[in-house]
């Protein structure tokens, strides 16, 4: 029943620099002799971070409550006899904090030693190796040796703790980040700490595995290799991966993400902190949204029907295929009037794609009707997921052919079935695969021109199929449901002969007299910024990593 009473006082410090003045909502303090001014309520760890000093930590995570259990962040605070945890100690006016003293350093060594005595040290076969906090901090703060000569505690390894998450209890440092995530963020409460002492183990309750729409975040925030993402396990050593900042195109939230690539493949998608959009998290569907890129059959090069109808699709050169598409449209207009032309354009495309869809298809080629199909599924949830699964509905409304509208699409497709529409351009959509129209009805068209990244049923039925870039292969801007414009970045070389959609549309448009240069996506966006008031003042560069809000009327 001890309550600690520490006798010794730290030696009084040499006089440091003077404290800066603080406003009424601020406090000023000294951290390693650096004057820092922070908002009241800021912790010492956060204050140090603001001053550019890292206080090493495992259990602290800016998006979770404070647990204070790892003890890695212990620092010296003048007048406090014991070291204090930086993550839970509020910065106070006049506080003097030291993060580099011999006492702090030897305590960090001790914490590292404690964390490693029962750790399996299986870095060579651990997916976390290369981005593991144990590795990083042992190198930076550890003593580099162990005095532990005993048998380690053994726990289950390679344990399926959830549908997509594998747990290695021996690697776990019991920081409870994963537990707090499930309690506080996903609010699904699957995880808990069980048992005690050095037998304490993270686990689930009987019959309730870790299975929620956000389970992958536990893997991201696990500072060690205890939780791993099944689809990514043993796929790539992380030091070969290159993170490209981008935005998720899975739904109208448009979470900020990193696309981790190696060998021209996305191996995983992880959240990128953006407090205006997704904070620290993404959903599991977004995380796996790169899977179709490798799972679905790609459209490798342009294809066109040799004769007008009935024959098989054949490979064609780009110029040839584009000429053929233009010719088909022109012939149909001539024979049946421009009212027999229509288009279906996707709100999953970027602002640049949609702008050129408008320019090339509506203005240049004179297609009078473009429909944008909505894609909705389920309900908006409490965290990120939007029922609107189109990432750029707002962009389509502001800069493209209009907001998604089921009725308009239905009308167009009914006209196709009735033979009133005789040429249809489909960009990034698959009405046949989505069941919006049947093959027989689609077969009545004199011209079906499809721009898409994969061999969708609609693309397979096309007279001319033009291969576009898939997700992660091109640059472009998405506007999320809250009006935040963010950049999608090209992380991969385009597959085979694929081209960015906006460039395909530019080339098609040119065949109808489209004038603009449009050399790059960023130039296309500049034209949007110059012509659409909502985008005034924006540019790819101005959007930066976190995006900017468009001005809505």
């Amino acid at each position, binding site marked *: 029943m001890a*309550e600690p009473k520490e006798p010794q006082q730290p030696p009084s410090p040499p006089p440091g620099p003077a404290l800066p003045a603080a406003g009424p909502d601020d406090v000023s303090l000294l951290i390693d002799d650096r004057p820092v001014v922070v908002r009241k309520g800021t912790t010492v760890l956060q204050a140090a971070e603001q001053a550019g000093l890292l206080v090493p930590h495992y259990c602290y995570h800016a998006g979770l409550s404070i647990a204070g*259990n790892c003890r890695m962040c212990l620092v010296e605070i003048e007048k406090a006899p014991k070291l204090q*945890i930086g993550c839970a100690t509020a910065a106070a006016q006049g506080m003097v904090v030291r993060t580099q003293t011999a006492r702090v350093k030897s*305590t960090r060594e001790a914490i590292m030693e404690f964390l490693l005595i029962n750790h399996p040290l299986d870095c060579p076969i651990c997916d976390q190796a290369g981005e593991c906090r144990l590795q990083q901090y042992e190198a930076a703060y550890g003593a580099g040796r162990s005095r532990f000569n005993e048998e380690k505690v053994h726990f289950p390894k390679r344990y399926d703790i959830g549908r997509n998450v594998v747990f290695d209890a021996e690697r776990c440092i019991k920081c409870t980040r994963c537990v707090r995530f499930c309690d506080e963020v996903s609010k699904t409460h699957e995880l808990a700490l069980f048992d005690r*002492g*050095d037998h*304490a183990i993270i686990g689930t309750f009987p019959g309730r595995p870790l299975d929620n729409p956000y389970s992958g975040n536990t893997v991201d925030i696990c500072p060690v290799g205890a939780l791993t993402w099944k689809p990514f396990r043993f796929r790539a050593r992380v030091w070969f991966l290159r993170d490209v900042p981008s935005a998720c195109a899975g739904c109208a939230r448009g979470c900020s993400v990193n696309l981790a690539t190696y060998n021209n493949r996305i191996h995983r998608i992880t959240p990128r902190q953006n407090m205006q959009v997704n904070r620290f998290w993404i959903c599991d569907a977004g995380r796996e949204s790169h899977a179709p890129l490798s799972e679905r059959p790609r459209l490798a090069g342009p294809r066109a029907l040799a004769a007008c109808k009935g024959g098989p699709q054949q490979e064609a050169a780009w110029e040839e295929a584009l000429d053929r598409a233009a010719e088909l449209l022109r012939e149909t207009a001539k024979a049946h009037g421009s009212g027999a032309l229509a288009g279906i354009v996707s709100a999953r495309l970027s602002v640049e794609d949609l702008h050129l869809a408008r320019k090339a298809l509506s203005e240049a080629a004179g297609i009078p009707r473009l429909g944008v199909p909505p894609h909705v599924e389920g309900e908006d949830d409490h965290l990120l997921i939007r029922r609107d699964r189109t990432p750029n509905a707002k962009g389509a409304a502001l800069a493209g052919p209009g907001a998604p509208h089921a009725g308009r699409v239905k009308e167009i497709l009914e006209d196709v079935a009735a033979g009133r529409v005789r040429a249809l351009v489909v960009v990034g959509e698959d009405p046949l695969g989505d069941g919006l129209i049947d093959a027989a009805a689609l077969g009545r068209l004199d011209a079906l021109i499809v721009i898409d990244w994969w061999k969708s049923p609609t693309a397979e039925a096309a007279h001319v199929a033009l291969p576009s870039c898939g997700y992660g292969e091109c640059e472009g801007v998405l506007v999320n449901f809250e009006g935040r414009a963010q950049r999608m970045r090209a992380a991969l070389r385009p597959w085979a002969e694929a081209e960015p959609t906006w460039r395909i549309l530019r080339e098609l448009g040119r065949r109808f007299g489209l004038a603009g240069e449009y050399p790059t996506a960023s130039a296309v966006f500049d034209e949007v910024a110059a012509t659409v008031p909502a985008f005034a003042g924006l540019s790819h560069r101005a959007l930066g990593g976190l995006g900017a809000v468009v001005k809505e009327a």
Partner: protein
Amino acid sequence: MPYEPLLLRNAGKPGSETIDAYLASGGYQGLRRVLKESTPEKMVEEVKASGLRGRGGAGFATGVKWGFLPKTRDKPRYLCINADESEPGTFKDRLLIEKDPHLVLEGIILSAYAIECRTAFFYIRGEFHQGCRVFQRAVDEAYAKGFLGKNILGSGYDLDLVLYRGAGAYICGEETALLESLEGKRGLPRIKPPFPAIVGLYGCPTIINNVETLANVTLIAERGAAWYATIGRPPKNTGPKLYCLSGHVKRPGVYEAPLGVPLMELIEERAGGLLRPDRPLKAVVPGGSSMRILPASKCDVLMDFDSLVAAGSMLGSAAVIVMDAGTCMVWALLSLARFYAHESCGQCTPCREGTGWFVKILERLEAGQGRPEDVDLLTDVANKVEGNTICPFGEAIAWPVQSYVKTFREEYEEHVRRKGCPLAATATVS
């Protein structure tokens, strides 16, 4: 002058646990007087003036602790009674609960009144089956007689008391783990600050007091702070105290004496002296298993908060564990370390990992596989646990490790040299 027991005045008598016996001996008079004549503020002042210090382990001044409650009344205030008593060697609260529950209950009502609490929680160790039954009956009796419930004794003061049984973890005696457990969660100590007086049970201001502490409040209400403050070793070590004697003594048990009674008097006169005449005293743990050990040469000490700090240990729960010359100090520490390794909540790194490490090193030493560096390693690991944990459980094992090794270093080294326990043949390891 023989000492007249105050806390154990009823405990030995037949039927002492019933309300009738308690009332017959003058019980609940203090409560009547206070409800009639006093106010909560005056009651707090009275307890401050008595000098009462907590009997749960830390010896913190009770009235001062109550004074930490916020001045605002926008949230309910709670009193939690810590009856989790699980520290090895400690069994005093159990005696009070089983033998004189109304003495405790009266103190609870008085203290709840003082801190303006309307719901109190009695957190009792789950294994105290008898205590639970007895205390529940006492609570029922108190409700029936109007000492609990609405409008107590016509004073307009309401108090409800909830009996809550722990699920069997030592750590739930730590006050913030106790709160978590009461809230229905796993008993994990909270980081402090905030302290429970500000943010406690269900986020409300909460006072946690030990059973014996509250029994003392009854005495103060009965006979006044001035009288109380003369008992023991005033001004800082006042009042009667229950001492739990165990180990190698003839008559182990709970003994009452004022604070400041000489340790040797407890051992020799009250507990009947050492168990075996051929084995002299080797060491005493004066305050429960978490406290530093005193070698026989330092046992000429008074049993109170400040004297024991001066002697290098603490009064703790006043559990006096006596060890004679047949005790192996490696084995004794191993036995202790096993308890702490088992009971560490596992939350924070140094304690979770350190407690198990102690056991493994000590097991090797006992088994004759010790290495010379193990002796310093034990101390160094303990030094790294001490002061670096969420709750004082870290010290509760670090202090014994440090002090056993320091005080009996020679014995540890001998285990290494001789590849085993030099006392193995004779040790009383039961």
